[in-house]
């Protein structure tokens, strides 16, 4: 279990109540620290549209990686009397992006926070049913969510006539059977319908035609966990939590050869340097930082000269990569960049759903070239071919964002580690191997 270091003087609404010993907050304990207060107030005093307005005014942006404004996402749901029913809300808990371990922490430590966030969000869009779409390998989160959902039903927070308001919501835990593509929101809906998890073309977006063609909103776990706090303490308070251009706090993580790998809730816009040096305790002795992967396998590499850029959605976009999930992988000089990128592309090739040709055929081809280079069998024109592939598999040429995401670390890796790639080919060997 991750230990979150409590940072003095900073507000940590998402993790402040999560215990260091790895035990879960049960319903009574969650209520004692103010849990379900926002829901009680919203059902008593706020119309659904007012909950959406609070989230819109708070500038909450999706924490799954894309950073789409949450209030805006909800605003596309038909709230008129003509809306097709039932509507659905889905928590995307299919956390499977390599190097990402934040949603697990939230679900294991404080499952009711997610449930309250889901009820409020479902209320805002008028949903009748909600699902937690949980990845198959998350056994402990599954046990804790199952217990928490049962507690919430028993206490009248779920089911018919919630807290006497007349609002009805049933919430189910759906445990996936395991595939990375299920995290893509339209593929997730296809999986939830009991079919091969293949993405859908957009438009129509899920808010218009989602689960079984009904209006559906899919939000990431961390995103949903913010909602009770926004409703409870207000949009202005939430906006002020951010340090840079984006609002709120963010769960930042760091793994790799650092002294104290972990997870920290910090103001949105903290820099990678602050996370590495103040929280993760710097690089381990004998290890020099060569690059960071800021937010999961599908985020491009960040060179060490950009360590001071605020890690928010807007600022990171100017560095050639993106915030992604905000869980950083520190890469050190004892790791061969070619081997690491081969590892990443192996993952993407394996997890391609196979629906569209460029992704299905292109990713294994990229992996084969990288393997050859790593083994000292690279050809002179291999780098040109890899560059070509970053375009062929880039945005606009594939059915969904899977292959373009796979190309981000390759494209930035060829830039940052270009000399390393060339040396592998000219020397015909990997100098990291003995």
């Amino acid at each position, binding site marked *: 279990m*991750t230990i979150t270091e409590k940072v003095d003087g900073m507000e940590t609404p998402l993790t402040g109540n999560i215990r260091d010993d790895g035990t879960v907050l049960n319903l009574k304990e969650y209520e004692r620290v103010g849990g379900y207060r926002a829901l009680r107030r919203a059902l008593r005093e706020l119309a659904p549209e007012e909950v959406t307005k609070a989230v819109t005014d708070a500038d909450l942006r999706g924490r799954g990686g894309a950073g789409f404004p949450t209030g805006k996402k909800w605003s596309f749901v038909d709230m008129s009397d003509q809306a097709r029913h039932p509507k659905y809300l889905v928590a995307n808990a299919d956390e499977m992006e390599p190097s990402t371990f934040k949603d697990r922490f939230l679900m294991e430590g404080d499952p009711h926070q997610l449930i309250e966030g889901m009820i409020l969000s479902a209320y805002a869009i008028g949903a009748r049913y909600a699902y937690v779409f949980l990845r198959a390998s998350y056994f402990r989160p599954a046990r804790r969510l199952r217990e928490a959902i049962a507690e919430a039903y028993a206490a009248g927070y779920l089911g018919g006539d919630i807290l006497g308001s007349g609002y009805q919501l049933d919430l189910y835990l759906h445990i996936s059977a395991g595939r990375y593509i299920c995290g893509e929101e339209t593929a997730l809906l296809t999986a939830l319908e009991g079919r091969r998890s293949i993405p859908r073309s957009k438009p129509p977006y899920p808010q218009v035609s989602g689960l079984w063609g009904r209006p559906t909103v899919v939000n990431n776990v961390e995103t949903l966990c913010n909602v009770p706090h926004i409703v409870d303490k207000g949009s202005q308070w939430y906006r002020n939590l951010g340090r840079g251009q984006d609002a709120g706090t963010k769960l930042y993580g760091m793994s790799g050869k650092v002294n104290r790998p972990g997870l920290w809730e910090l103001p949105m816009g903290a820099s990678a340097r602050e996370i590495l040096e103040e929280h993760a305790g710097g690089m381990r002795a004998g290890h020099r930082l060569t690059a960071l992967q800021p937010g999961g396998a599908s985020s491009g590499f960040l060179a060490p000269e950009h360590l001071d850029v605020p890690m928010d959605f807007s600022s990171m976009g100017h560095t050639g990569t993106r915030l992604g999930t905000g869980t950083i992988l520190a890469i050190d000089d004892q790791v061969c960049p070619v081997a690491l990128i081969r590892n990443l592309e192996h993952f993407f090739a394996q997890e391609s759903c196979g629906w569209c040709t460029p992704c299905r055929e292109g990713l294994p081809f990229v992996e084969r070239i990288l393997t050859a280079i790593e083994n000292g069998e690279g050809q002179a024109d291999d780098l040109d071919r890899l560059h070509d592939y970053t375009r062929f598999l880039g945005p606009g040429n594939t059915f969904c964002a899977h292959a373009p995401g796979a190309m981000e670390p390759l494209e930035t890796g060829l830039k940052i580690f270009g000399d390393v790639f060339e040396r592998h080919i000219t020397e015909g060997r990997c100098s990291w191997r003995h």
Partner: protein
Amino acid sequence: MLSQEERQTIEEELSHYEVPHAVIIDALKAIQRHRGWVSNDALADLSEFLGVTVHELDSIATFYSQIYRRPVGRHVIRVCDSASCFVMGYESIRDRVFAELGIEFGETTPDGRFTLLPNPCLGACDHAPVLLVDQDLHEDVRPEAVRDLLADYQ
């Protein structure tokens, strides 16, 4: 024929969905829980119960990595092979497991005790390298600890 228990689980899950077809993944998992894996006979039983063709069920079963269409051992070991574990040296863990069990990824020990599989990121990257045995997550695994770790699973 599905067993009474299998039917009961599937019927309970059916109530969670607007469209019955959605229960297929829960149903495959329920069968696997009871029978260890999903055989052709199991697909035929499920096909009869749900009114969905065997071919469609097979196309779904083979898409997902946690549905086994071949028999597996009493314990399934899943070694994380993703980026953080790669940086933290998962390969030495993998090689130690190979050596201890005398099998490689995708294989089962002759005594039927272990099946060994690679697994994408297990979401515990701050404790890499990690591996999963059945439902138990083992964190900060060291190669020299592999033998003792496996001894707990008979």
